């Protein structure tokens, strides 16, 4: 046991005396360079930005509108813009069904229950609002 302790102490002494080894001078720099490269690669940048896409979309929409309104369909025909007034707007007639609410005759107990329910619901809402304000 005593010998084991002596061995242990001896090994500790020689290993600590030997100390650490040093890596090359550019050890840290090369890790950071690699990390920098990876970080720059991982950032996604689209070739066409969202603004450019909006511009392209707007241009296409404008071309479609211009073609439809200002370019005549045949050689002698006037542009569609001048014919807009000729189009008859269809008239819609919507008739709603006549709903008549049924007349209910409730006993007093039901009326009292509804009032009590409303009061309790109001109290719950008020207390919840107060709790939110506190937190």
């Amino acid at each position, binding site marked *: 046991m005593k010998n084991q302790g002596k061995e242990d102490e001896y090994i500790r002494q020689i290993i600590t*005396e*030997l100390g650490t080894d040093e890596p090359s001078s550019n*050890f840290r720099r090369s890790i950071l360079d690699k990390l920098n490269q990876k970080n720059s690669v991982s950032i996604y940048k689209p070739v066409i930005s969202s603004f450019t896409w909006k511009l392209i979309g707007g241009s296409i929409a404008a071309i479609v509108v211009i073609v439809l309104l200002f370019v005549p369909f045949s050689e002698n025909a006037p542009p569609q813009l001048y014919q807009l007034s000729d189009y008859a707007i269809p008239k819609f007639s919507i008739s709603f069904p006549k709903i008549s609410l049924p007349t209910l005759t409730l006993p007093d107990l039901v009326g009292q229950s509804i009032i009590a329910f409303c009061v309790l619901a109001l109290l719950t809402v008020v207390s919840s609002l107060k709790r939110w304000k506190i937190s």
Partner: protein
Amino acid sequence: MKKNVTFFQVLASNVKMRFQEDQHYIKKTLEGNLNAYGQLIQKHEKYVYTLALRILKNREEAEEAAQDAFMKAFHALKNFEGNSKFTTWLYKIVYNEALGRLRKSKNYTIKLDEVEVLDSDSIDYLDGLKSLQLIERKELIKQGLDALKPAESAVLTLFYLEEQSIKEIEEIMSLTSSHVKILLHRGRKSLLESLRAITKSELIHLL
């Protein structure tokens, strides 16, 4: 147990004192500050490199393994929960990286048989080491460590140099407590045996 503090341990602690706590650099790194990670590397590079070198026994390969370990640690830093010491977590990455490289190069397994029993007076043979100059002595100790099996060398480095506890070494090497103790015992014996052989031949050579 009384523990003597050597000059090298004092020097190592002074070097570490220049730096702040690991958590400070981890927090800054996670905020996107790469320089903070650079400082974290600077703080631990020697120990990480030494551990890789003791396992791989080759400077270039050890440097590559240490660099890859630091890269992996950077990418996994957000998963570090702080349940263990940062060094324990980092050494686990380094150990696995070095072991992976070793497995690629040769068929490597940790065996627990063939524990050699040394004579009780074997340590007396090592007195010759004390008579040598520091540089020569260091060279011989290095040779002795190089003669060890990677797992033995790693466990001795972690226990004596990096001052990791048995429990922490269990976590780093993914072994049981008894397994670590056996490796430690066998490592001690093997190192003393190889040092005895080296010292004897060296002293005979000097005569």
